[in-house]
């Protein structure tokens, strides 16, 4: 075994795993999206019928757009909530950094499903929020929009994916050398200007990463909408899952998946491009 080549052997398990269980299945799915399904099973052919079918019913498009909208709002809220937390941990409460980070990590240890069920209970008619509101006297009856609605989906998604947003933002803030901020102040920037002209631009990469994490994870989520979304909160994930389940139309499911994936990628790319333009102007 020649000295320099050992890294190839070390990387082999990773690549084998990824190729076997990620790239190849993705490739298979892509191939399926051009096939057809009949009573007798899958028919290998090449057709764009499945993709056209996406446009045949308004429902699919509505659901795709709704999924994107819900995911986008959830991701924005994630970023808006995470940034101050990451910021104060980095610059104000440095001693609490480890402790809070452990808390965030621990929240990820608990089962994802259990957490969604917890929210179902909290948001429900007899749930904690409604009980408190009625107890204080702000409302007379339970608020129905809190559960089985897009709002419920957004709230739940935010709480589930905030840890994924805090960590990249925190990491990028940690990498800012404090003397950069001191230099900005020394040159005449007040606290806000120093933040806006130095800290924010330098933490943007973390913000974008955090946003992309929560956006893409939210858009594809299909358990959360199923449990707390009701009919108005249904997202495209459910339809795709159905195609692979009872509807037994894998080609259509694949086409739907790839089409949604394409739209999401396009959207993320546009967002990054917009940010680049804004950053250049600063």
């Amino acid at each position, binding site marked *: 075994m020649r000295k320099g080549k050992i890294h190839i052997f070390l990387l082999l398990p990773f690549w084998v795993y990824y190729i076997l269980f990620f790239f190849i299945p993705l490739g298979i799915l892509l191939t399926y999206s051009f096939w057809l399904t009949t009573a007798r099973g899958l028919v290998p052919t090449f057709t764009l019928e499945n993709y056209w079918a996406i446009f045949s019913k308004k429902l699919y498009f509505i659901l795709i757009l709704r999924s994107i909208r819900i995911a986008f709002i959830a991701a924005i809220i994630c970023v808006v909530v995470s940034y101050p937390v990451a910021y104060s941990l980095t610059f104000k409460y440095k001693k609490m950094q480890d402790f809070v980070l452990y808390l965030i990590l621990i929240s990820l240890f608990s089962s994802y499903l259990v957490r969604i069920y917890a929210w179902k209970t909290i948001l429900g008619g007899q749930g904690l929020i409604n009980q408190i509101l009625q107890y204080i006297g702000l409302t007379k009856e339970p608020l129905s929009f809190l559960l089985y609605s897009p709002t419920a989906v957004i709230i739940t998604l935010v709480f589930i994916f905030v840890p994924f947003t805090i960590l990249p933002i925190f990491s990028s803030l940690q990498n800012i*050398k404090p*003397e*950069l901020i*001191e*230099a*900005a*102040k*020394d*040159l*005449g*920037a*007040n606290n806000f*200007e120093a933040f806006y*002209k*130095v800290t924010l*631009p*330098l933490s943007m990469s973390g913000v974008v990463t955090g946003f992309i994490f929560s956006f893409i994870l939210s858009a594809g989520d299909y358990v959360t909408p199923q449990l707390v979304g009701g009919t108005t909160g249904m997202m495209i994930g459910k339809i795709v899952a159905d195609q692979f389940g009872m509807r037994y139309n894998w080609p259509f499911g694949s086409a739907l998946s790839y089409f949604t994936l394409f739209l999401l990628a396009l959207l993320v790319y546009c967002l990054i491009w917009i940010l680049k333009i804004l*950053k250049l102007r600063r």
Partner: protein
Amino acid sequence: MSYENTLLVIKGASRSFGEVVAVKNFSLQVKDGEFVCLLGPSGCGKTTLLRIIAGFETLDSGDVLINGKSIIDLSPHRRPMNMVFQNYALFPHMSVFENIAFSQFLKKKPKEEVARKVRKMLQLVQLEGFETRGPNQISGGQCQRVALARALINEPKVLLLDEPLGALDLKIRKQMQIELKNIQDKLRITFIYVTHDQEEALVMSDRIVLMNEGEIMQVGTPKSIYNHPNSKFSAMFVGENNLLRGKVAKVDSDCLVISVDGLELFANRTINVKTGDPVTLAIRPEKLRITGELEGKSFGNQIRGKVVDTVFFGSVVKYYLRISGNITMVAEDKITDESNSRSIKIGDGVTLGFTRESLNVFAE
């Protein structure tokens, strides 16, 4: 070239971090246009003091005044001083132009004026043509010059420099020392320069403030600190020095006779001591002249020694000498064409002559 006005006054500044006293009752007056070096070993408080002047550290007690007005309640962005940081602190997401122009854009100056000023600064630090480069595309020395331009464009009353040349190669450092000195001469801005490199301080400053453990040990021009250190610390920190311990044998009207290990040495009477007091003597290696027997008498002091080692340093040669059982000393000699004929070898016995004035005495 006016040194008339006192610009910056530090009065009794003290600052501790928990149990550690960083700065203890520090007082200093700096004149307008002066180049002052804060010199001292690591941990002596010089950087803390600089940050106090800049506004990045608070004072436990004392005051800092500019033109008679206290500035300790002003936050850093309101103070009329600018800082050049040790690791440059250039904004990585901005070009050289944007870095230098940063302070001007904050002040909402018009674009053409800013462009003109930046160009002038780039000329001053000899970096014309570098406007669009990013901080990670230029060398360390160039970064330092951008940091300098960025601070100077603001026309501060005082420029604070925190060991700005520390991260540079020796050759570039020496070059930058001269460039900095020239820029300061040209602009006549007050420079307060922190360094632990005593050679740097000697080269650049009008005045040196020697610090140790948060306190001022000595303040003076490079010459006075070098030739007349006031303590063992000063003698050893700046330049090389031979230290001897002895006892005062006799106090005359204008000179002291000190006995060191059987030798009798004569020094000018610069301190108040009485016979029997223990003292420390310091003599610089280059002040020990290797002489013939008769010449030595004209120096005022004469001792004999044996060469145990010679070391070649390029432009000088150092002789390590054993004077007596307990005393070893270092003598330094410049290498000239004549000295080739002298050729002193290990084992030679030599006579060393030195003046009374060059022998410093401390009461320790």
